[in-house]
């Protein structure tokens, strides 16, 4: 098997180093050559490895390659190694492939930005970090990658650091991610204590005591929840939309936020040892899917709708992993990467065309002007809504089907409830996606004419974000709106094609064709699935109902917004609750941030100011006083020093003379 994974890791790093050191002085074409080249060659290497892996018999597809021995201390040894198996192969293809498309798109989207080189340097750095996370063969280098993607995310959210809101969002993301990193570190400590080693090959075959296994799995899941924006650590992701839109597409939709899903799939033998932890994974996943979907129903900022939608879809993936169907989670990860990246890039194209406008109330009617964007956006919306035969249908139905089958197998009513939540969320997803679609593309253009009363909705945050927009320059006249350049539309078209056919890589068990394509058992064979085998009837019930929910959602959106989006103020308290995102940010502010800030201010004034600073001032005053006195001894007259020496000698002689 040809294994080029080391190059997949090193090429983006090389690109980052070149751009980081010399990018400032390079012309744009050279920046693009390095940025695209690094990512494109990495993708090429990944693709070559992939095809070579496909040609290998399924049993020999795992390659654990040691690059160098890092630590060897007593019985403990740790290598920097690359583990290439179907799971990491899939992730590599997604990361470098979607990454490449977004590199290409960014050339158009960021064309006017003065920090062009910095953007591509960070993008290459992110690809490197993510590949490191995915390809590491032990938990320690996983942690390294885990931390580095957090750093890349921080840098890219705060890319427009002149904006206060972007800086605040970057800090929020970083702080919440560090909570997750902390969980991961604790889990690694426990793993080391229990197994005495950190490489996957050793740890994942080790049997831990039940309590330890649960603790490890739950701590790992804390890390996953922070990275993948699950309850209760999801708050950073909507704010992360402050970053440039290609960043939202790459990091905060397609790849980095799926690291948690990857980690659960990678460490599934640990989760298998703890049914309680898996139940938590499934429960949190389901709760997050529903919770985020409800918020997405009423958002007005198009990128925030997509952000909440991402959180919700990640919830689906965890739901699948919670019922032992790890490959279904990864399958949904792949299809979601296609259509969610496409949705974000489409939203980016709209924002670009409207000179920075993100408020749905000031859009509408763009179908006539943005034909390619509209069409690809429609395909992605259909895919995420789970309409047959688009990609999202296959993966979402595999998840819902396995949840129902697991409920049927265990007879546990909670899994039926989870399944119902999944169906409900599918309907909501279809509704908010088509609300968004109609809001952007249907009806009449509202940008130039309709004055939106900003004061009534209380959504000051979005207004500020829009007002501080990077290149926001007031409303654009309808006739001057142009569809995006080919450099941006080609990635859209490729992703749209993938969103249509991406689902066919799964197994078509629904139609009795479990082995129809060479890819059908690529992942499941490697994951030793413990998923419940449902009957075909159950699968069809689940499929039919989710399809129905999707169609109903689209229908409702069509009835309400088909003629164009109109924002209506609604005083219904439930509506207000959801519209304000359950006041989570406000509650956090009141419960956590304001008391902490008050405490910090008090401490900095009294503890640091009076006690610590006062103490050090006292010490310095003492020394200064002493030295003012003592320096008189240094007269500069040689005779005084000579006298000092003489006196010293006399004292010593007298001492010895007296002592005898």
């Amino acid at each position, binding site marked *: 098997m040809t294994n080029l994974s080391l190059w997949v890791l090193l090429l983006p790093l090389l690109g980052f180093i070149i751009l980081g050191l010399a990018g400032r002085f390079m012309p744009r074409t050279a920046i693009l050559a390095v940025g695209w080249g690094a990512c494109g060659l990495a993708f090429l290497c990944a693709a070559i490895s992939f095809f070579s892996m496909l040609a290998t018999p399924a049993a020999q597809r795992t390659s654990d390659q040691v690059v160098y021995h890092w630590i060897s201390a007593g019985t403990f040894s740790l290598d920097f190694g690359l583990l290439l198996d179907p799971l990491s192969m899939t992730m590599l293809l997604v990361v470098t492939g979607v990454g490449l498309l977004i590199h290409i798109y960014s050339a158009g989207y960021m064309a006017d930005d003065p920090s062009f080189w910095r953007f591509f340097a960070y993008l290459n750095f992110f690809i490197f970090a993510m590949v490191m996370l995915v390809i590491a063969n032990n938990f320690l280098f996983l942690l390294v990658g885990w931390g580095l993607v957090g750093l890349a995310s921080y840098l890219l959210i705060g890319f427009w650091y002149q904006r206060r809101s972007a800086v605040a969002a970057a800090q929020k993301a970083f702080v919440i991610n560090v909570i997750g990193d902390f969980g991961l570190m604790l889990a690694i400590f426990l793993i080391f204590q229990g197994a005495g080693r950190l490489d996957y090959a050793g740890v994942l075959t080790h049997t831990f005591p039940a309590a330890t296994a649960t603790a490890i799995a739950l701590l790992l899941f804390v890390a996953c929840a922070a990275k993948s924006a699950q309850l209760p650590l999801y708050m950073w992701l909507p704010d992360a939309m402050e970053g440039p839109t290609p960043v939202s597409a790459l990091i905060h939709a397609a790849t980095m936020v799926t690291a948690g899903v990857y980690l659960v799939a990678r460490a599934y033998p640990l989760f298998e040892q703890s049914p309680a932890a898996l139940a938590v994974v499934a429960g949190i996943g389901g709760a997050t899917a529903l919770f985020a979907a409800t918020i997405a129903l009423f958002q007005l900022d198009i990128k925030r709708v997509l952000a909440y939608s991402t959180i919700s879809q990640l919830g689906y993936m965890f739901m699948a992993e919670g019922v032992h169907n790890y490959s279904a989670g990864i399958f949904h990860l792949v299809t979601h990467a296609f259509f969610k990246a496409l949705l974000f890039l489409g939203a980016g194209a709209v924002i670009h065309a409207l000179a920075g406008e993100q408020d749905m109330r000031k859009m509408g009617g763009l179908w006539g002007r943005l034909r390619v964007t509209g069409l690809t956006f429609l395909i992605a919306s259909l895919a995420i809504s789970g309409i047959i035969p688009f990609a999202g249908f296959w993966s979402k139905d595999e998840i819902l089907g396995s949840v129902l089958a697991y409920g049927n197998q265990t007879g546990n009513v909670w899994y039926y409830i989870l399944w119902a939540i999944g169906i409900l969320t599918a309907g909501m997803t279809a509704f908010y996606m088509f609300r968004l679609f109609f809001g952007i593309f249907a009806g009449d253009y509202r940008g130039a004419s309709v004055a939106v009363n900003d004061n009534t909705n209380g959504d000051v945050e979005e207004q500020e974000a829009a007002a501080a927009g990077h290149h926001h320059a007031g409303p654009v006249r309808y006739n001057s709106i142009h569809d995006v350049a080919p450099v941006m539309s080609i990635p859209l078209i490729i992703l749209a094609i993938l969103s249509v056919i991406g689902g066919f890589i799964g197994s078509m068990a629904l139609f009795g064709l479990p082995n129809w394509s060479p890819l059908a058992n690529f992942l499941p064979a490697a994951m030793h699935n413990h998923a419940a085998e449902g009957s075909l009837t159950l699968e069809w019930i689940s499929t039919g109902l989710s399809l129905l929910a999707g169609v109903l959602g689209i229908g409702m959106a069509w009835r309400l917004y088909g003629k164009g989006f109109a924002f209506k103020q609604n005083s219904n308290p439930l509506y207000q609750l959801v519209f304000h995102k359950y006041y989570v940010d406000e509650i956090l502010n009141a419960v956590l941030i304001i008391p902490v800030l008050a405490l910090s201010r008090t401490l900095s004034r009294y503890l640091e100011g009076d006690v610590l600073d006062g103490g050090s001032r006292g010490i310095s005053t003492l020394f200064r006083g002493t030295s003012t006195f*003592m*320096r*008189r*001894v*240094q*007269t*500069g*007259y*040689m*005779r005084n020093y*000579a*006298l000092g020496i*003489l006196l010293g000698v006399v004292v010593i002689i007298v001492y010895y003379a007296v002592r005898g």
Partner: protein
Amino acid sequence: MPLSAYLIMSALLFTIGVIGVLIRRNPLIIFMSIELMLNAVNLSFVALSHFLDSADGQMFVFLVLTVAAAEVVVGLALIVSIYRRRHNIDVDEMNIMRG
């Protein structure tokens, strides 16, 4: 003559040397005083060597003479270079190290 006479003589010479170092301001005189101190020590070395019937003390005298010669060379070189810089070799004027 008894040994004590040599030692008292040596102590007197040494004290004169010390006082010279402490009170004179001309570095050349200070050097002479230092030589005086060194030779006071030499005197006691030689006297003790004689009275103890041992050559060790005389060996030390040669050592001291060598060191004294080297010290004078360095010291005179310093004085010359200071004089070139300041046209003055009064040690009380050289007090830039005052705290």
